[in-house]
């Protein structure tokens, strides 16, 4: 992606895209039902509620009940999409996701919004920095972190065709559109969004964009970065990770999530067991965030372009 276009790129809301798309899909897929726990205006499921009131269930402020009810709906043949903020979806209802949904491998899609620190001013109580880890360890669970609105569209469309539990993490903020309308999303597959040979940056969510920015800066120093969108966190694209490890011999991961248990851990697990390669993780230390503007928080907690550039230098210094 050319340097210039990166700065002027259009931003679009992932959750708006989800809300519109699920409402649209509801027209043709009568088995879709949507549940929310009093956040439908924020998660944008209100669009579905308006268009298909009979198939929308507001569960009140009761996330546990929402997830188990979704399990019951799925067990009776419906395709439930349950939405709330990431912090509540995965934290409040972890046991319900485990016991009611995943144990029986039920077709429940959990589409959370407000994942990550870009939640901003609402502060640490609302910033889910552990949700991907919580969902990744869960048997039978698929975990996807789309990078932009176009990819969100592709992921939601794909989710409808993929039976079984799935966690899709969206955000509050609008993100730059790094993908075209046909983003080529496939479950378990990553995509190289910028090619390069000195180092590979494996990123997800907003950090794909930040990684592209970092790659531009690094190119000025003569460092050629490969940037890979790893939106499919589970199943993960082992092949692409190992190819990057073999060809570039140094890796960086970048995610808007704790450095524990998320994409960084997933990539490290793959390379350690197959082709030990330096991996430097960009993400949040396991601390709680703060209230503030999202870009300021990303800088403060080490998830911005500068942090990625630093991580690249460090990973290169470890390269053998």
């Amino acid at each position: 992606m050319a340097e210039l276009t990166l700065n002027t790129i259009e931003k679009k809301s992932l959750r708006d895209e989800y809300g519109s798309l699920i409402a649209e899909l509801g027209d043709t897929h009568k088995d879709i039902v949507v549940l929310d726990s009093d956040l439908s205006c924020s998660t944008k499921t209100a669009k579905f509620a308006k268009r298909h009131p009979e198939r929308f269930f507001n569960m009140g402020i009761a996330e546990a009940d929402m997830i188990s009810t979704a399990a019951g709906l799925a067990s009776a043949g419906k395709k439930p999409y349950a939405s709330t903020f990431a912090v509540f979806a995965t934290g409040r209802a972890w046991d319900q996701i485990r016991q009611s949904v995943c144990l029986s491998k039920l077709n429940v899609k959990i589409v959370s919004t407000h994942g990550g620190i870009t939640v901003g001013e609402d502060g640490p109580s609302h910033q889910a920095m552990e949700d991907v880890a919580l969902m990744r360890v869960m048997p039978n669970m698929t975990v996807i972190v789309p990078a932009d609105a176009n990819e969100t569209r592709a992921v939601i469309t794909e989710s409808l065709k993929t039976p079984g539990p799935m966690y899709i993490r969206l955000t509050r903020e609008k993100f730059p559109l790094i993908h075209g309308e046909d983003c080529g999303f496939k479950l378990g597959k990553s995509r190289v969004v910028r090619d390069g040979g000195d180092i590979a940056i494996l990123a997800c969510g907003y950090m794909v964009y930040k990684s592209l920015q970092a790659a531009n800066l690094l190119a000025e120093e003569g460092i050629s970065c490969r940037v890979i969108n790893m939106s499919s966190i589970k199943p993960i694209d082992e092949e692409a990770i190992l190819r990057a490890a073999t060809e570039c011999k140094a890796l960086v991961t970048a995610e808007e999530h704790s450095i524990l248990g998320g994409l960084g851990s997933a990539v490290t697990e793959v390379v350690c067991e197959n082709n030990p390669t330096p991996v430097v993780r960009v993400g949040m230390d396991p601390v709680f965030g703060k209230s503030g503007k999202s870009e300021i928080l990303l800088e403060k907690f080490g998830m911005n372009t500068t942090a990625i550039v630093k991580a690249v230098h460090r990973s290169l210094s470890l390269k053998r």
Partner: protein
Amino acid sequence: MEYTDDIGVLKNIANDLRVDIVKCLTKSGSGHPGGSLSAIDMLTALYFSRMRHDVNNSGGDKYDRFVLSKGHAAPALYAVLARCGYFEKSCLDTLRQVDSILSGHPYAPSTPGVEVSTGSLGQGLSMANGMALASKLDNLDRTVFCMLGDGEIQEGQVWEAAMTSAHYKLDNVIAFLDNNGLQIDGPVKDIMNIEPIGDKWRSFGWEVFEIDGHDIGAILTAIDKARKVTGKPSMIWAHTVKGKGVSFMENKVSFHGVTPTEIELETALADLAGE
């Protein structure tokens, strides 16, 4: 499959199932006799008289559903399902063994006739609601039955679900409360009092039928009445005895999750044989 209105026959079935429960629990060496024995008369009334179900079409559209929210009473459910023919009765001897289809708690992927997995208390009523909502959307004439423990209703999610059933007017939900008065650490009223039970459910918008949970006739009548209720869910509030039918287990906290020894089994079988 046996299906009858004859109370005497149902009583005999329940007694046979009690025998199956204590036998398989003695064999497995772990599991929950007390809450299985308190629930078995209600399960018998459901599976052998009132619930519409089909061994060859488990979970099918035309049939009712049952969710054992108090999943630790799995032996009672398994004894019933075996007798109905969902699987071979000999499977009961493999309860809790590694290659068995019968997990310690109901595990849907492995056991025919089990629609959802339970064991983590407090989630079953929500799942039953989900099934009931789906059935309404599909215009199915299906009743979803759900069995709760009295200790279990200390879980907050039960009350979230209680609101949901009433809010969505789920008259196709009929729940049973196995009110045996005991939980693991002691009497429910000492651990965390749940009274007044009837008032609580009524105030949450439920129709409540209070019965003796070991009186098969009363159970059948309550189910019939509950089926006629419209616009709201029904709770069959059943007074029961934990360990019912086995003298040394009755009303004993200690037999919540402890299985009989071989010697105790003989006493239990003698009790159940009416000796």
